[in-house]
Each structure stands twice: as structure tokens, then as C-alpha cells.
């Protein structure tokens, strides 16, 4: 029997998927042995019983059975453990008042616990730790659960709001389109009508166009309002009932702690440069088509030419080294 077949067959009752395509496999987090649904019903309907697998002496209960999400049992087990641990250890960065180091330490500790539980290292102690933490921090845990629930609710609300707005916008746009089409038709007819009455053609066209312009529809106005609302969407600003702090520092992030110095050490005189290699590239269609510009190339080359000209390594590194030793 190969692996594929075995996977599709319940090892207890030997039913396989070929004959009963509706078969579902369940596992119990006690031992993660795979058993088909009908077997579970059969064996555990009268109360807790031993796992039917040979050599497995775990006592299983029916209500703990669940369907397997991940094919790999190891992954499934770890996910379950994670779920359990995170229900208890649910602090967020906010609980540490933004102290990244402390938070990282905490996360590391949690990972250790998960790893130990997953690999069966020192399980008794770790369980004890989990329990005592839960007892000691019950209040905090509950608060955090509440908070995460609120977060999710807020998120859902916001999504709903945005979806509604989008729908409205689309319908308004459709309305505007229709009105415009009707207006154009009307203008055409009106022009013909007036011309048949016998006035000068240019004047008539001018007049009709003016009236069309004045007929700026109410739908259009509504759309503008809607756009305004979307622009200052209350849900992006509002979270947990208070204004979210928008970017803490006012200086934008720059990777090297400052903007580039704008004064250059060279003057770019593209028409003077005579570089056989680059000039050739400029003539090639595939280069030009993809936006090749000689001035950019020259600029980059010249920047690199002077990059670090004023760094005197022997002086700068000497002082640095001595300070390191001290």
C-alpha cells in the first residue's frame, strides 16, 4: 500500500475515500492520531475512551475532536499550542509603553515556552509557568482580550463603511454618466429645433452649450461631497475612541539621518562630454525605448567620482580606533 492510499483511508475501519467520498478525518489534540468521523461517532459516543491506535494509551473525549487544517501533524500541533499560549500571553507593545527591548524579551520568552511545549522539553515546569502566569495576570489578560475584540470590531466596521461608500460612489458615477448622455442628446435636439426656427447657427450652438453647462447635476454635487467624506475618513483617524497619534516625529525618515546635500561638486555639462561607450548606447533603440537618458548616467558617474573624496581614512580611523580601545 503506498503513502497516497494510506492517507485516503481510515486506519481503524479501513473505509477509504474511493468508496465513501464524503468521509472526513478528525484529530484529537491529545495525540493527533487521524480517525474518520464515523469511527469517532462509533467509539466515543458512549463517553471517553482510549485512542484506537495501537500502542496509544491516551484517553480521548469526543468533544475535543476537530478537523485537521494542516496536512503536517507537527504544524497542526504547533498552531494549537500557539493558540493556547497566546490566549494567555497576550500582551502587546502598548503594555510595555513602547519599550521595544522589553517587548522583544517578552516575545522571546513566549517563543521559548511554545518551543518547549512543542518539543516536549520540561513540559511539567512550563505548564506550571503558564498556569501561574495566567493566575497572576488574569485581569490584564481579560483586558487584552477585550481590546483585541474591539480592534477587530473596529476594523470590521471600517471595512463595512468603506464598502458602502464605494458602492454609493459607483452608483453616483453611473448616474452622472447617464445624465450626461441624456444632456448630450437633448442638446443635439435643441440645436436642430432652434435652427429650424431660423436663427444664426453659431449663436444657437453657443447658447445651448451654456445651458447644458448650467445643468450641473445634483448627482455630481453629491459625488463631490462623498469624495470629501472619503478623504477625511473618520475611521482612519479614530481608533479605540481616541485620535491615533500620527507620526511621532515631524522630520521624515531619512536612512542616513539627513537629506542629501544639494550642492554638487561638479557641473553637469552633458553636451561637452564625449564618451564613446555611452553615446553608442544612446543610439540603440532598445535602450532609448526603455527610457535611457545619458544625463542620468553622467550624473551618476560623476557622483560616484567624488563619493568619498573628502574622507581621509588614515586620520578618521585613527581617532576612532583609539576611542574603541579606550
Amino acid at each position, binding site marked *: 500500500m503506498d503513502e497516497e492510499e494510506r492517507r485516503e483511508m481510515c486506519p481503524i475501519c479501513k473505509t477509504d475515500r474511493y468508496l465513501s467520498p464524503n468521509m472526513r478525518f478528525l484529530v484529537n489534540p491529545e495525540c493527533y492520531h487521524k480517525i474518520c468521523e464515523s469511527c469517532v461517532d462509533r467509539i466515543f459516543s458512549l463517553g471517553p475512551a482510549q485512542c484506537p491506535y495501537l500502542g496509544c494509551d491516551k484517553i480521548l473525549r469526543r468533544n475535543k475532536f476537530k478537523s485537521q487544517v494542516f496536512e503536517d501533524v507537527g504544524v497542526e500541533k504547533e498552531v494549537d499550542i500557539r493558540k493556547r499560549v497566546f490566549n494567555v500571553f497576550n500582551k502587546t507593545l502598548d503594555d510595555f509603553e513602547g519599550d521595544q527591548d522589553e517587548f522583544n524579551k517578552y516575545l522571546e520568552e513566549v517563543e521559548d515556552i511554545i518551543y518547549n511545549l512543542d518539543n516536549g522539553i520540561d513540559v511539567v515546569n512550563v505548564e506550571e509557568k503558564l498556569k501561574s502566569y495566567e493566575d497572576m495576570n488574569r485581569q490584564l489578560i481579560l483586558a487584552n482580550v477585550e481590546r483585541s475584540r474591539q480592534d477587530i470590531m473596529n476594523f470590521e466596521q471600517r471595512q463595512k463603511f468603506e464598502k458602502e461608500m464605494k458602492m454609493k460612489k459607483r452608483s453616483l458615477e453611473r448616474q452622472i454618466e447617464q445624465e450626461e448622455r441624456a444632456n448630450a442628446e437633448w442638446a443635439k435636439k435643441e440645436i436642430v429645433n432652434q435652427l429650424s426656427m431660423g436663427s444664426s447657427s453659431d449663436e444657437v450652438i453657443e447658447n445651448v452649450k451654456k445651458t447644458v453647462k448650467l445643468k450641473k447635476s445634483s448627482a455630481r454635487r453629491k459625488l463631490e461631497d462623498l469624495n470629501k467624506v472619503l478623504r477625511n475618513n473618520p475611521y482612519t483617524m479614530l481608533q479605540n475612541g481616541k485620535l491615533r497619534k500620527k507620526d511621532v*516625529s*515631524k*522630520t521624515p525618515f531619512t536612512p*542616513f*539621518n*539627513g*537629506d*542629501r*546635500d*544639494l*550642492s*554638487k*561638486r*561638479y*557641473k553637469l*555639462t552633458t553636451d*561637452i*562630454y*564625449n*564618451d*564613446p561607450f555611452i553615446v553608442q548606447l544612446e543610439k540603440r533603440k532598445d535602450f532609448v525605448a526603455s527610457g535611457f537618458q545619458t544625463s542620468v548616467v*553622467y550624473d551618476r*558617474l*560623476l*557622483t*560616484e*567620482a*567624488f*563619493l*568619498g*573624496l*573628502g*574622507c*581621509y*581614512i*588614515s586620520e*578618521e*580611523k*585613527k581617532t576612532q*580606533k583609539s576611542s574603541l580601545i579606550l
Partner: protein
Amino acid sequence: MKKTGFDQTAPTKRHASLEMTESTPSKDSSALKTSNENDEPQPVKRISDDDLYRNSTQYRLWSFSKESLQNKRKLLSADIAARFDSKIQSFIEKEGAQLSSDEIEGLQKEMVPITAHEFLQIVTLYAQKVQLFGTKLKLPTEVTSTAVVFFKKYYLENSVLDVHPKNMIFTCMFLACKAENYFINIESFAAKVKQPKESILMHEFPLLESLKFTLMVHHPFKSLHGFFLDIQSILYGKVDMQYLGTVYEKTKKILVDSILTDVAYLYTPPQITLAALLKEDEQLTLKYLELKLLGFNINKEVLNEAEQKRKEQHDKILQTVRECLREMDVSYMPSRDEAWRIDARIHYYLDPMAFIKRIRKQKEAQTSGEPAQKKVKVEQ
């Protein structure tokens, strides 16, 4: 922030940028007042290209003052000496019973630890081999140069006793191909250099570790290209294009050779490039620097303050470039004889018995007068 000579060359531009920095904070503050009164306006910081270079790993991790470079090498050679000693000791202890006294003496005399200088020589020799293989495989100059730099950096962190340089050559080349975006897959690379691919890949991660995972190498070639353009603009009408082209080619060759020296650790790419240009055509380079950095006649006697400052900068750069040129002319390439001797010592370190065998062979050849080869066969 350090100021450089070139800030001065465009006084109008500089002035403009200064004005901008002055006006921006005030604008900021007015904007801030409307939104939040508590925040203080932040002054706008500007960083020059030099500061950018100071942020590069080449500057932070791979640039040294001359003394610290020497110290680094001394540490390595001290380590080598210690290992040589303990190796001889343990070898004599283990095999001493089978050895005659002059064999031991010869061993002690021959197995002199490799000095820092010899270390450098052997690394330079194999670094040149990297270059040769690079040209043989028709790799672009930059790729080959990166390979050489990797190779040299590896032996700045590790001793030749750990991995024999000849085993590092292809790993460096393979990694350099990847680092320089000139990818050759390992199968075809191994086939090209006629080496088993395991022997190449085996050292790849240790190499990466020794490089501290910094793969960007700022070569002076781009800098040279930039100067080639800037010379055209500064000396417009004064220099023949054809001639400048040959200068460019020759300077590039000088730069390729300079990779085997220590300049890359001690100076920045533009400084190295200027040194190479100075070596190729002193007059042209001096004239260029004069016009570029001074903007007035170098023989002018009376200088105002700004000019004085510029002259100082010009002199400092020129001095650095000249130092760099001196360093560039220091070659560590060993002669064939020297190289052979150093290599032999590494070989004997790895396998002291080989040395004893050689001595015995020599002795037999002397005493019997027969070719040593035959004698050995008879004994067997």
C-alpha cells in the same frame, strides 16, 4: 560635518542651498503652529556625499588606518607562529621515535612560521591568480576585481593555514559573479574551471561570514569614468579627446593592478583614481586638480580668505593622493623562488611527514649516488 574642497567650487549654488535651509525651518514652524503648538521645528540636516560614503560598509568595516591594518596582520601571524610551534611539538612527540636527530633538527630549521610579510606575499600571489582566471574566463573587470577583493578580505580575517589559498580562488570568483549580478550557475561554472562543484560551494558560507555579509565593493573604475567626464568639462578645449581616451585605458590598467596592493583599505575610490591618474599623466592631473579645486593660478602669491581655504583643501587632497600613489607602488608580489618556499612551508605544516620523506629521499640520493626514485622502489 566635514567640508570638502568641492563645496567651494560652486559658491552661488552653495549659497542658494544655504538660504533654503534657513528658510525651511521658519516655514515649518508656521505650518506646525496651526496643527500642533507643542512640536518644535526641526532643523534640516544635510549630508554630503562624503557622509554617504562614511555610511558604506566599505568605509565602516573595510577601511583601516595603516597601523590597524598592520596590527590585524600581526595578530594573524602571531596565531600562525603559535600553531606552527605546537604542530612541530606534537609531531615530534608522536613520531619522534622514528626520526633521527638531524631529521628533527632539519624539521625545526625548515618549519619556520610564516611571517606577516610572507603571509601577505602568498595572498598577493594567489590574488593575482584570481585575476588571471578572471581574464581566462572572460569575466568583466569589475567582477574579477570584486573576486580579488573578496579573496583578500577573506585572508584578512583567516589565516592561510585554515584554507589553502588555492582552494579559495574559485569560491571567491563564484561569489563575486553573484554579487556583481553576473550570475553563472554552479554547474557550468564548475565545468568551466574544471573543479568539482562541492569544493567550490564548501567554502562559500565561511567566505560570506568572513566578509561579514557585506558584498558591495566600491571600485575605483566608476570613479575613473566620472573623472574622465569631468576632465573633459573642466579642461574643455585644452585636451585632445583621443589622448584622453588612451589615458583612460592606461589608468584603468593601473587600477586593475592596484587591487593587489593595500590601497583599497587605506584610501577611498576617488583618491585611488586620482593617484592612478597622477601616475599616468602627472601634468594633466595636476592641472585638472588646480582648476577644479582652486579655480585660480597655483602660483598666485596673495590670497584672500576663501582662496586660502581652498588652497588648504587642494593641498590636503593632493597630499593624500600622493601618499596613495606611494602606497600603490608598494608591491607584495613574491618572486617565484620566494613563493615556492612559502608554499612549501604551508605544505609541510599541513603534512610534516612529507618533509621527513623528502629529507630521507635527498639523503639516499646523496649516499648511494643513484636516483632517489629507484631507491625508494627497491625498498618497497
